[in-house]
């Protein structure tokens, strides 16, 4: 199955969720800023990345994990992706997960300062604090997603 975590810019919450899914981050404690910065693509995207579905890795059940920045298109984007997969007859092969409900103001303001304005030195610590605060909520979302994947796997089996 293909799992696509999507958020506004595809550089913070979706990347963190994907990293949690792939076991790149600890689950029992909040990560440090250094650990967050070590994740591929974390706070490291530009305008050309909007709309691109980028590969993050493969989990232990061979689910392929991707991230996507979809600007302000909201939760509808999950339906856009699911609907298109349905058209192709493979609706059960993708799971689109919106991480935006877990994004807090620190992440929004920090992300804006770092990515949009380009003042990384100011924006990045803010994003780091915000991500640490939202971390366990993102972990719960990932847990729910993994359960959904297992559910679908059992249904297919």
């Amino acid at each position: 199955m293909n799992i696509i975590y999507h958020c506004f810019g595809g550089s913070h919450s979706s990347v963190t969720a994907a990293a949690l899914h792939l076991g790149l981050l600890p689950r029992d404690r909040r990560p440090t800023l250094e650990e967050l910065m070590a994740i591929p693509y974390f706070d490291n995207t530009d305008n050309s990345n909007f709309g691109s579905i980028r590969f993050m890795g493969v989990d232990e059940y061979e689910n392929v994990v991707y991230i996507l920045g979809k600007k302000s298109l909201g939760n509808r984007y999950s339906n856009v992706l699911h609907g298109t997969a349905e058209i192709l007859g493979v609706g059960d092969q993708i799971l689109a997960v919106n991480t935006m409900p877990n994004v807090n103001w620190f992440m929004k303001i920090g992300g804006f300062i770092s990515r949009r304005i380009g003042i990384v030195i100011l924006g990045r610590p803010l994003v780091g604090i915000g991500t640490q605060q939202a971390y366990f909520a993102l972990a719960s979302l990932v847990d729910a997603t993994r359960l959904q994947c297992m559910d679908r796997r059992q249904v297919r089996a």
Partner: protein
Amino acid sequence: MNIIFLSNTGTHHALIAANIFLGRLDKPDFRYVNGFCDTFQDHSGFPIYIGEDEEGNRVYTLGVGKDVLMAKKSLEDLRYLLGFTEKELVVEPVFINGQNIIMFFSRWPKFLGGDHLNVLSSTYLIQNQFNILQRVVDNLRGRLQNMH
């Protein structure tokens, strides 16, 4: 093959382009176009099935808001990662001048005359640019012929 006409809304100019493609519309008279300006259909984000042409191509419209080209990129990436090609799914963006006005009025509250303004503005704008939509469809037909 599946064809998605992609635009900021799925029930205005993309719908007209889809109907032109299906041979249901050859002049700018939209009175009998099923679903024209029906914003309710557009809210979910799912592609809207319009019909099938004589070659068996299934035609859909999809409204994705302001950033149509970004959505096109996502759908093409999705098509690729699911293992399909342009022979199974064509994503055709449709643009006209004033499409933001159409989107604006399609979200205007009903109690302030939203339905009326939606139909009036979109009919006026699309009628005046009907030839642009015909050209989009002609270009697409040419591309499809080259693909076969």
